[in-house]
């Protein structure tokens, strides 16, 4: 088989921005992976995804997080964006890394995403795993990254979209 795991697009912010968007995503892969390293300009914000500019209440997620003291779990339903995590959130000064694996993104079923968030803040912070659902059978052609509650993504943040083929 040919090798897979191809970079599709990458964005490095030279200045703070409200979002990072990957558009015109080709349908030629099986799964997608987003790798994000960066900050928010405000603390305690959560990186979220929007598929195909859908801002209706079609998103939900369940997460498990550890904060150095306790393990916690909860969920969100009927959201207008897909939260990657929902516990302690961002730091202004310490970058966090978030990966999002979107499975069968071009298929005709609802879309599942697996998130990993590494947000250690040197004495605080969290590690999170979450599963998200976008209730749409449309193929994903665009993904926008934003921080909620609304705040800019900090300058220097990097997001890369990779495509993975299963054959």
């Amino acid at each position, binding site marked *: 088989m*040919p*090798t*897979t*795991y*191809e*970079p*599709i697009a*990458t964005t490095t912010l030279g200045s703070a921005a409200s979002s990072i968007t990957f558009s015109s995503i080709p349908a030629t892969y099986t799964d997608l992976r987003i*790798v994000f*390293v960066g900050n928010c300009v405000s603390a305690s914000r959560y990186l979220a995804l929007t598929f195909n500019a859908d801002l209706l209440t079609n998103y939900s997620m369940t997460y*498990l*997080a*550890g*904060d*150095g*003291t*306790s*393990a916690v779990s909860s969920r969100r339903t009927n959201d207008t964006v897909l939260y990657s995590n929902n516990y302690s959130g961002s730091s202004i000064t*310490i*970058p*966090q*890394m978030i*990966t999002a694996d979107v499975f069968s993104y071009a298929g005709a079923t609802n879309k599942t995403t697996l998130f*990993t*968030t*590494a*947000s*250690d*803040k*040197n*004495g*605080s*912070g*969290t*590690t*999170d*795993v979450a599963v998200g659902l976008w209730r749409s059978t449309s193929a994903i052609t665009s993904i926008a990254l934003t921080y909620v509650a609304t705040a800019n993504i900090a300058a*220097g943040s*990097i997001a*890369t979209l*990779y495509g993975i083929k299963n054959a």
Partner: protein
Amino acid sequence: MPSTYTLISSNVLTSSAASVTFSAIPSTYTDLVLRMSARTDSAPGNNASYILASINSTTTSGSFTVLSMNSASTAAFSFNATANTNWLGAANGGGSTANTFSNVELYLPSYTASQNKPMSVSSVFENNATAIGSGGPWGAFAELWSNTAAITSIAMTLSGGYNFVSGSSFYLYGIKNS
């Protein structure tokens, strides 16, 4: 774009070793992925040891937050530490089921960026036993290396001063984002 995910270096042990080091890591990639399958020569009563990583020979720039669960408790638990090496999951110990090795992946993005380095670890270690304290941990680790230098080396040892046994394997991959 060309596909990425290139093997930089590997080490499959043919005899016990106190440490495994990847040095002279090239700066030509965007992210690093380190995959390990490890077992230790710890005493029969010891089921696991933590894998400790010294990045660029530092020992106090690491911090981490861990989410884990094992058979010592029915609930998941969390702990953290600062001013330390970075902990990269666990390795099966001498007291665990024979011929069984743990499975660890470290994802280290933007390892040459002039900023502190966040990274994630996924670690699984299963032991076919039901007694309290005899089983895994499964763990998700959020790691931070508080240093703005590019990462050029990763040296791994074990808690308790044990050795990695023969058959333990370590693979370092580089990923380019363009």
